């Protein structure tokens, strides 16, 4: 597949098989720079597996992934992190025994405090870094309107707040592309709107590219263009949400005939 400037991520004929089960079965897609791309599809369509392969958690059976023209197939997650590729999890992950602020402060890599030598002999430098980090973490917590949770243990906050914290993690570094796996799952409307606002602001102000897996069509409609629909491990259709909604195959596989016959039912 030819690489061009506007493509941030190119996925080329990706396969991921678990034994006989083909979770991702020849998926090819591109993610444009600066876009908020929605990824929809029925449960078991292979969306999360695709995320896991792109993010380096799983090794693909075959196929390749490119980021900015560089082949990143099989590169481990923490190396991708340093390249600016970040992800969140369907079920929010957190360092449960640490405060929300500490959770955020853990994110940036390459700090001098990481080595044993500096722990003992570079205390001044570490203190300066920590102060800058703390300020940044506080800023992020404020942005996400959860500054009152700064000192709470992350294991004790609600599921929705954990989702916000996950989003906050992506703001601690200069991410290029962020993969959000069902940020809206189990989150109430108000909080979902806050998350949506945050995503749009990050996209516009900081130029983050987003790929969003989501089942909430209103949320997708508000944020995402284009939308990619997956089914059975393959890309079924791609386009604006309106185009996707009108696509016969997508209705068949995902949205269901209920939507098509709505008028008749309502009559």
């Amino acid at each position, binding site marked *: 597949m030819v690489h061009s400037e506007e493509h941030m991520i190119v996925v080329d004929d990706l396969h991921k098989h678990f034994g006989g089960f083909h979770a991702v079965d020849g998926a090819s897609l591109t993610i444009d720079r600066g876009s908020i791309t929605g990824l929809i599809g029925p449960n078991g369509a292979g969306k999360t597996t695709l995320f896991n392969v792109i*993010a380096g*958690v799983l090794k693909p059976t075959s196929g390749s992934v490119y980021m900015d023209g560089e082949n990143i197939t099989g590169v*481990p*997650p*923490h190396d991708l*992190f*340093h390249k600016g590729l*970040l*992800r969140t*999890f369907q079920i929010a*992950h*957190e*360092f*449960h*025994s*640490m405060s929300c602020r*500490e959770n955020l402060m*853990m*994110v*940036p*890599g*390459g*700090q*001098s*405090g*990481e*080595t*044993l030598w500096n*722990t003992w002999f570079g205390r001044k430098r*570490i203190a300066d870094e*920590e102060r800058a980090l703390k300020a940044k973490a506080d800023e992020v917590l404020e942005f996400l309107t959860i500054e009152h949770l700064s000192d709470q243990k992350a294991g004790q906050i609600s599921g929705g707040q954990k989702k916000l914290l996950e989003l906050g*993690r992506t703001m601690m*570094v200069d991410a290029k592309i962020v993969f959000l796996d069902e940020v809206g799952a189990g989150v109430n409307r108000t909080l979902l709107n806050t998350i949506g606002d945050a995503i749009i602001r990050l996209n516009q102000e900081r130029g983050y590219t987003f790929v969003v897996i989501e089942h909430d069509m209103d949320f997708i409609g508000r944020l995402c263009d284009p939308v990619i629909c997956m089914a059975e491990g393959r890309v079924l259709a791609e386009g604006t949400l309106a185009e996707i909604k009108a696509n016969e195959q997508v209705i068949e596989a995902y949205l269901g005939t209920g939507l098509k016959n709505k008028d008749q039912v309502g009559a």
Partner: protein
Amino acid sequence: MDFLNAIVALANYVLIPGIAYGSQLALGALGVTLVYGILRFSNFAHGDTMALGAMATVLMTWLFQSWGLSLGPLPTALLALPFGILFAIGLLLFTDRTVYKFYRVKKAKPVILVIVSLGITFIYNGVTRFIIGADDQNFFDGERFIISAREFKTATGLDEGLSFKTTQGITIITAIIVVALLFWFLNRTRAGKSMRAYSDNEDLALLSGINPERVVMITWMIVATLATIAGVLYGLDKSFKPFTYFQLLLPIFASAIVGGLGNPIGAIAGGFVIAFSEVTITYAWKKILVYLMPESLEPNGLVQLLSTDYKFAVSFVILLIVLLFKPTGLFKGQSV
């Protein structure tokens, strides 16, 4: 007077030995719990890591003694300890690079790593006995007692003597310093926090700026340090015999599990719970009861609940009881 005698006897035979033994178990259990929390397997080789680290220290001690170096009233082993620690760090990092890393990269199941560590145990065990022999080795020198029983008796006029061995004092002080340093490290430094983050959630840690290989390396270095210190303290207090460290593995694991695997505070608490259970259940209480009871009620037997031969069984009974009521240990561990 009898009451004071009873208290002194209690301190002499139960409290002081219990605290010293508890400190040794706690240091050992901390090493086990760190490996479990961060590398996610039960490291059976820990007992023999203690043996090897202690062995290196013993050899250095002998070398220093032959040079005439000494610390005056303190044992020369303290001078040799840093060299023992360096040896153990080198050994564990070498083992990790050549053995554990292979399985870690393959994401092997914990049970496989446990068996691998059992293999390492036998290798370490063999190496230790090959180098220093299977017998008891004495490497203690310096002042034997901080307070000796005879001095105590003449000073206080009591019938019961209280002896406080130098090794017991060193054990307790060292344990306090080491534990304080460890907790400072885990809670206050970036490297320590990375370790906790890795222990909390490995997947997320991998998706952060945490370098997993560095976390693993630092963990092994700390584990080697803890193991060597625990091994040397135990060796100073009792005597150095390779096989006893293999046996120590049982109460050490019991301590770590009772406290909650993966939880450092639990490891310390567990160490003392196990140590005091062993000491109180295998101690012959006759002496203390004779002081406390009226003459007509004085016991004829030893009032020893279990013979010391069964002391390892005690740890396991305590372990079973605790796990029945709190399956994740006294302090919440990562489940067993």
